[in-house]
């Protein structure tokens, strides 16, 4: 099945602000061999919650599969995938 050409996707993950949860999230990027181009971690503005944002260059199906791996992770509250170059720039600035 032909796959769509890779493009930049920004994935934003809201998750518990706990070291073990953040460690696990970074581990997902590594163990799933996610081709990330940028990574940022900030407080989300909600107490006890962090926002992990990363950019990956992949087709939409791959980006969705990466999002699903985060979605099922304990401590993750929400996952959002943006396929917008402007948003990508904004999120990683």
């Amino acid at each position: 099945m032909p796959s769509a050409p890779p493009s930049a996707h920004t994935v934003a993950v809201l998750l518990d602000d706990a070291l073990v949860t953040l460690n696990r999230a970074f581990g997902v990027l590594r163990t799933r061999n996610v081709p990330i181009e940028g990574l940022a971690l900030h407080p989300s503005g909600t107490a006890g919650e962090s926002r992990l944002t990363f950019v990956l260059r992949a087709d939409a199906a791959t980006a969705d599969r990466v999002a699903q791996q985060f979605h099922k992770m304990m401590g993750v509250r929400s996952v959002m995938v943006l396929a917008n170059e402007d948003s990508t720039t904004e999120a990683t600035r």
Partner: protein
Amino acid sequence: MSEMLSGAEILCRALVDAGVEVIFGYPGGAIMPFYHALPDHPRLRHILVRHEQAAAHAADGYARASGRVGVCVATSGPGATNLVTGLAAAHMDNSPVVAITGQVSRPMIGRDAFQETDIIGITLPITKKNYLVQDVTELAEVVADAMAVAVEGRPGPVLIDVPKDVQNQKIEYGAPRARARGQSRPQTPGAGPGLEDGVRKAARLIAGAERPLLMVGHGVILAQAYAEVRALAEKTGIPVITTLLGISAFPDGHPLHLGMPGMHGEVHVNRAIQHADVIIGIGLRFDDRVTGNTASFAPQARIIHIDLDRAEIGKNVPVAVGIVGDARDITRRLLAAVEPRRCERWLEHIRGFVRTRAESYRGGLSPEAILASIYEASHGDCTIVTDVGQHQMWVAKLYPYQHPNSHITSGGLGAMGFAVPAAMGVHLARPSGTVWAISGDGGFQMNMAEMATMVQEGLPVKMAVFNNGYLGMVRQWQQFFHEKRYSCTPIWSPDYVKLAEAYGIPGYRVGDASELAETVGQANTQPGPALVEFMIEQEANVFPMIPPGGSLSEPIETAPAGATGD
């Protein structure tokens, strides 16, 4: 009413409150407060293993056989790291295990203290969740949360690391809240328009299919969807394939049952996949041992994939319809949506692919004959726990499973040494049933010290050792793919009969098929554990075989030219 309790006492009480009855473990320095408190909680039966790896495998076996959480306990450092293989096996095969480890006291953490290891960091990729309990007031809630996390959704292992000073700390103890604070959890998929739409699309695809197949995996066993899957197969006449971990989800002798697919699947099973126009996959992840080269897997098929884990849909193979949900629930909905039909021409087509092989074995001691003797001795009513290697494939292909969830093996991780300790866990989950642990001479030697555990704890596991003097599956690969260079695969064994006797266990050796019925029958009726060694053909191979990364259409059915033994 509240009372003053230590962390260790709270830990025990929380386990009792969670309904835990059996713990597999091994004491040591950092977990000593827990072991000090344990005798005050007689409801918690502790099984003292001989190596922590066995504790994790036994907890895994207990969990798979009972559907409940299996619990293992170890001390910090080497105790904790010895659990890792067992936890990885439970993670790969979705088995609900909770591991409790002692940790050095909080002021010592990060100072490279004696027996300090970052077991949280080590187990991050092989657990659903893990906790370092830094506050004794959270301990009971953490245990309750861990027990829930292990079983809900897609099951898996959870680890709780408890520093020694937290175990010793005393607090006023009240009933725990249901969940630990501030812990968010992934959403469980539920019914909705997307689900109904998926079921409708799947039913339409099935109605229009000329060569449909049902592929059934471990998810069917976890969801106990046996009756629903059987009803779906019988209503539609669709033939059924069971993956390694799906074996025993569908009766082996059923006219619609084809067998196991993949690397060592029978030719007609793999050919059916390659000719199918619709595949309904329920509770499997289409792993590489099932698909071979995914680029050439089921080239004509549109795949309907039903799985509890959204992340599995489309992960390994492209799907036409993905339905996220519990296998039992979705199969029931699909059953209601499909029209009755038959697939006689398709079944006839598949029967045309069936190959018969005539292989000769020393003393007639074929895998078929050995497994038939175990089946007959146990009247077909036992749980078979296998290790990893050639014997595992023979059992998967040849044992005539009739009862749901009566086949337990380390599928995803493929951990040699699994069978013997996992069988101990299975016995404790099913104390009135018979359990056979079947191993090769390699895997058996990895955890054979657990015979001492069986004797001390009164666990009547029956052990079968397929002795061919080789690490058989690796030797087979060397024969096929590495110029028959048997590098480091010949393996010496002790005298297993004498070894068993040294443990106080009856030991038997079978070298000829004529001895099978009487010897296996005797072992099966022993009140305690028993061991039977089968002196099998040294260079027997498991056929057919799809080369790693190869296509299901191109099986190896005989040994390569110049090779001996077949």
